[in-house]
């Protein structure tokens, strides 16, 4: 079992190294095939691990495996080790499975790009980093994976490095994530100081014994990391900008896998968070606030990818809410279905963008359902799943989260209301996007003349597979009637809250009604055009002024400080003293130069005179 897990982890790393080292000897197409094959191998290995794990008894499914002692510092030792347990296997299946489909899709999407090899090397590196993150056997390795996914994300957002916006977006994502990484590292420092280890097996049982202050601080550090990686309030501003990367990157990293790492972290370290209930409530509150805010902003976005990006943020808000109130399995189940339908939406959007030769502006699209009928139906399936309409996957995963919130006292009821508003907004913004792009009149111009419907086998087939998955994946868990996901994950993260049947029925009814209501309003305004679309408010267009706020709080003062230091410290002190020094040396040189007359007789005279002086001194002193 361990061997399969290691193969799953290392196959993409091998592909990344091979593509890098082979360089020109490997054809561009070959690089794509190699990356796809390696991620596919990872998926097969993950399935093997899963099947083997199924054979164990449910409470005996933890299999740590240590490759070697990584480092020893004083009395602390850290192993380069992985942990195979239900949670990590679940994540391995998602990462490798969805990753395989998206890398395969990339073969078609990136065809003809100048730097395909680099792209596929980065993609394989990302999959390796993400697998390292989810398979890590201790928090140090997890932190290493955490940093490496940030790096891969940076590299891939800035993949089209000749575009200044892409480079700026990559930097923004990296800096924002660095805040989170630092917070997490601080939390881990405190944790290792208190418990003497970072191994899951040691830390989690010890978490209950931490003093409340320490537990709160550690949980806050971890939450900081999770919030940055998952683009939740208040570190959310990097995600929309990250859409500058290629579309499959947005699908894989900024929708299906990396941004959900924060949810994984909270579920993985649930023992620590349960020792700090206040921080857990903060996590749930942040999730709720984010899902509401992102849903509102998504209403006014005009870039098709940014609508989906804000929707991602909003859906991760639901997962945070679930993880915060202790409905871990529900959060993880939503993570799974979200990976399917959000990857589907991104990849389908990629087909649209491809067909329109790079156009991403919704206002310039229209009437595409006649030209791209199959993509249109994929979008419809993805949109219905996202809006949580019954039989599609989002319905089965989102509603348990809301009913769990309802079972959590007055705080949960507030969250429940926010989540319900989110449901309405989800339906509204999703179908606004679909109606704007696919309905209405066809616009003129070359941009809007897609050549053919299905753009090659690699893009068409992967989107078809994801469409099917987005439609049916919900049946993996049907409320309390059929709960394989909860059964699988509960030994790792036992739920803190179980809703009653009444609460589930009420939640589902309200959520579906609101989702349908959102779709209806979208149809009324954007589909049937029976009403004028309201003017987008300035507040929403400026994304609640977060960018401006951070600009004013951090960027401007830093620039002012730098200017001040340049003007009052660097120029007068550092540059000034150097200038004086060089000036002095030069003047000294000019002075001394005059002594060298070139006249032999002056030298001789100097020697004779000084000799005479020396003699005199000797004589007189004696």
């Amino acid at each position, binding site marked *: 079992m361990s061997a399969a897990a290691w193969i799953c982890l290392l196959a993409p790393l091998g592909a990344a190294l091979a593509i890098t080292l082979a360089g020109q000897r490997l054809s561009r197409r070959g690089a794509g095939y190699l990356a796809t094959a390696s991620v596919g191998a990872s998926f097969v290995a993950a399935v093997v691990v899963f099947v083997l794990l199924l054979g164990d008894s449910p409470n005996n499914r933890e299999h740590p495996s240590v490759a070697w002692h990584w480092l020893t510092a004083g009395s602390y030792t850290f192993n380069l080790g992985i942990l195979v347990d239900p949670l990590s296997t679940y994540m391995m299946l998602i990462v490798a499975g969805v990753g395989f489909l998206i890398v395969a899709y990339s073969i078609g999407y990136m065809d003809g790009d100048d730097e395909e090899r680099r792209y596929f090397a980065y993609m394989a590196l990302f999959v390796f980093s993400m697998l390292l993150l989810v398979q890590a056997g201790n928090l140090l390795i997890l932190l290493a994976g955490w940093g490496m996914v940030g790096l891969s994300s940076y590299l891939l957002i800035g993949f089209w490095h000749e575009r200044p916006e892409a480079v700026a977006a990559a930097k923004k994502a990296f800096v924002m994530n660095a805040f989170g990484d630092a917070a997490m590292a601080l939390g881990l420092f405190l944790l290792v100081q208190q418990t003497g280890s970072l191994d899951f097996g040691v830390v989690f049982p010890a978490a209950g014994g931490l003093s409340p202050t320490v537990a709160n601080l550690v949980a806050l550090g971890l939450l900081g990391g999770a919030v940055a990686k998952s683009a939740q309030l208040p570190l959310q501003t990097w995600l929309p900008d990250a859409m500058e990367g290629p579309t499959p990157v947005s699908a894989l990293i900024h929708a299906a896998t990396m941004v959900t790492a924060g949810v994984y972290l909270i579920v993985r370290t649930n023992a620590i968070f349960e020792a700090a209930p206040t921080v857990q409530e903060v996590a749930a509150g942040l999730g709720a606030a984010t899902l509401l805010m992102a849903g509102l902003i998504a209403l006014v976005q005009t870039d098709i990818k940014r609508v989906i990006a804000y929707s991602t943020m909003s859906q991760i808000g639901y997962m945070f809410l679930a993880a915060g109130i202790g409905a871990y399995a529900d959060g993880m189940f939503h993570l799974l279905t979200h990976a399917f339908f959000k990857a589907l939406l991104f990849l389908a959007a990629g087909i649209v963008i491809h067909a329109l030769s790079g156009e991403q502006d919704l206002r310039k699209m229209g009437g595409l359902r006649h030209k791209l009928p199959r993509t249109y139906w994929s979008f419809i399936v993805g949109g219905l799943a996202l809006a949580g309409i019954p039989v599609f996957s989002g319905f089965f995963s989102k509603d348990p989260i809301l009913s769990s919130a309802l079972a959590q006292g007055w705080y949960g009821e507030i969250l429940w209301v926010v989540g319900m508003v989110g449901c309405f907004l989800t339906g509204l913004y999703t179908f606004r996007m679909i109606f704007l792009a696919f309905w209405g009149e066809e616009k003129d111009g070359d941009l809007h003349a897609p050549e053919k419907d299905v753009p090659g086998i690699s893009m068409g087939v992967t989107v078809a597979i994801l469409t099917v998955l987005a439609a049916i994946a919900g049946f993996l868990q049907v409320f309390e009637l059929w709960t394989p996901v909860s059964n699988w994950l509960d030994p790792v993260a036992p739920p803190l809250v179980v809703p009653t049947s009444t609460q589930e029925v009420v939640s589902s009814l309200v959520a579906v009604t609101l989702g349908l209501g959102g779709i209806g309003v979208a149809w009324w305004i954007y589909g049937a055009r029976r009403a004028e679309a309201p003017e987008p408010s300035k507040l929403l267009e400026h994304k609640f002024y977060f960018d401006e706020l951070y600009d004013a709080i951090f960027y401007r003062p830093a620039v002012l400080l730098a200017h001040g230091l340049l003007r009052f410290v660097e120029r007068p002190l550092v540059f000034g003293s150097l200038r004086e020094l060089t000036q002095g040396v030069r003047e000294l040189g000019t002075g001394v130069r005059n002594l060298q007359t*070139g006249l*032999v007789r002056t030298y001789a005279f100097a020697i*004779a005179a000084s000799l005479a002086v020396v003699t005199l001194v000797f004589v007189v002193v004696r």
Partner: protein
Amino acid sequence: MMGPNIVWYLCVSAFLFTTGAAGVLIRRSPLIILLSLEIMLNGANLALIAFSRYHGTGDGQIFALTVMAVAAAEVVVGLGLIVAMARRRLELDVDKLRTLRG
């Protein structure tokens, strides 16, 4: 065998040395400067030998021989330079040779 008082020797030596030094400082012809240098060296040699006799040891005489050898070498180089100057039809005047001025 006592000979004149050592002071006389030293007086002659000093006279020779200052004569040579004055020649080096005043004259401009390299040939004369070389000659004056020789006179200075010989003044010094005289002092060495006088002290050698005065103390009754041979050290000073050995030094004088060394100085003569060095002087011979120096003359060879110096005269070689002068011949080279003459060949290039340069004026034999050390004040004209000022290329190394700073």
